[in-house]
């Protein structure tokens, strides 16, 4: 069974046809990069899997979106907050809460009704370690998250996403606002995290897609043009449009 699957998904923002019949399967413990020019539908596609598009007025979705074989839009009793426990998300701009480093990571646990102090402390430490941030913050957990650098804030957001133990992590250009050192740390982290999670990442950086992903999907004007092993996409893509995009000739 595939971890994630979309079957003939169409998405409309009012009259605008943003996704046109996307069918794609993703295996567990893989990193899938979504690439394509701005406005091609890749972020919209990413947001399908935690139902973030539902928040936008005038959105209409057709087709099936499956997580662990269950249709996340049409399964009775599947609540969005339950879904988001399984599917974490990291955004382009680090967006820590105006709270301490510790409370940022503990937040997801607390809103899910967990109050056991030792359990929370343990989970915060584990999540910060998984996000490769523990060593840098272990002595200042009570300090404001805003005191951290941009790269540290982004890793804090990753720790926050991991704290609720999702099985899928969605990342929307997670390193585009970071310097090369922080970017390298995030990329290294993605590589480590795939042992435990299934990761889908939107990126405009071709080299980043090449470095971190197993599979790459190229979107153009709302269509999935090509989906293949990353090596194939970057060395011998089948579709001329993919070739033109990855070689920087359009998009």
């Amino acid at each position: 069974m595939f971890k994630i699957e979309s079957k003939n998904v169409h998405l409309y923002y009012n009259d605008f046809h943003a996704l046109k019949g996307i069918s794609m399967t993703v295996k567990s413990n893989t990193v899938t990069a979504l690439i394509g020019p701005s406005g091609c539908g890749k972020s919209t596609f990413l947001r399908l899997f935690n139902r973030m598009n539902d928040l936008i007025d005038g959105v209409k979705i057709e087709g099936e979106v499956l997580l662990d074989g269950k249709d996340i839009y049409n399964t009775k009793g599947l609540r969005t907050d339950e879904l988001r426990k399984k599917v974490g998300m990291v955004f382009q701009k680090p967006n820590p809460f105006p709270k301490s480093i510790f409370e940022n990571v503990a937040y997801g646990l607390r809103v899910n009704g967990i109050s056991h102090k030792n359990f929370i402390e343990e989970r915060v430490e584990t999540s910060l370690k998984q996000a490769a941030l523990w060593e840098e913050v272990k002595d200042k957990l009570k300090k404001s998250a805003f005191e951290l650098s941009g790269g540290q804030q982004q890793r804090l957001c990753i720790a926050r996403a991991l704290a609720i133990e999702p099985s899928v992590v969605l990342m929307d250009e997670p390193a585009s606002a970071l310097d090369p050192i922080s970017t390298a740390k995030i990329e290294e982290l993605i590589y480590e995290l795939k042992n435990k999670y299934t990761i889908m990442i939107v990126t405009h950086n071709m080299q980043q897609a090449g470095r971190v992903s197993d599979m790459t999907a190229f979107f153009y004007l709302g269509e999935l043009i090509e989906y293949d092993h990353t090596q194939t996409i970057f060395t011998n893509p089948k579709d001329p449009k993919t070739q033109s995009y990855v070689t920087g000739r359009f998009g």
Partner: protein
Amino acid sequence: MTHLDIELKQLKEEALEMFDLVTSQLKKSKTALLNNDSEIAREVNFNERRVNALELKIDKDCENIFALFNPLAIDLRFVLAVLKINSNLERIGDIADGISRYVAATSGRFDKELVHQTKLEDMFDIAVSMLTDVRASFDTEDTKLARGVFKKDDSLDEINANANSVVEDIIRTNTEKTGQCLHIISAIRKLERTGDQVKNVAEEIIFYIEAKVLKHLPGKNTNE
């Protein structure tokens, strides 16, 4: 045209220059050897430095393109191919240089009958024609031309395979020609090796244009 396009175009022009230089070297080494022309032989030896310098320049340019532009897909295959083609062409340059050095090492003109019987001149012509074909293939991206050289290389292999017995016969009856025979057999070996180098170049051109790897595959001379 993007900045990368400009860099790739320049790299292609340099590679074509390398093709032309090496083809000219091979043609001149033929003239030098068959006419015992020590002046042309010296010219080949002198120009070998140009071949080496151009090889280094192309290597450096490939390295820069990898580092600065991170080429992908067909661009990546192109730069990889040029890097390897460059190395093969430089080796052919070495071969032309080596053959030209036999002129100084031989006293007098090579015996015409000896040259005729060993098909040395044919070998030069086939090798030059193969080189011309791959150069045109590289320039026009016509892989049919590249595939054509595999068959031509078979002719070089055949001449090379027969050369030993031909030379043995000549030495048996004309021992005074032994020195010339040894040089000729060495030149034949080098020209056979040239065929292999050109075949490598053809494989790289097909890799770059069609993304197919033909290395170590039998039956490459098909037009598929």
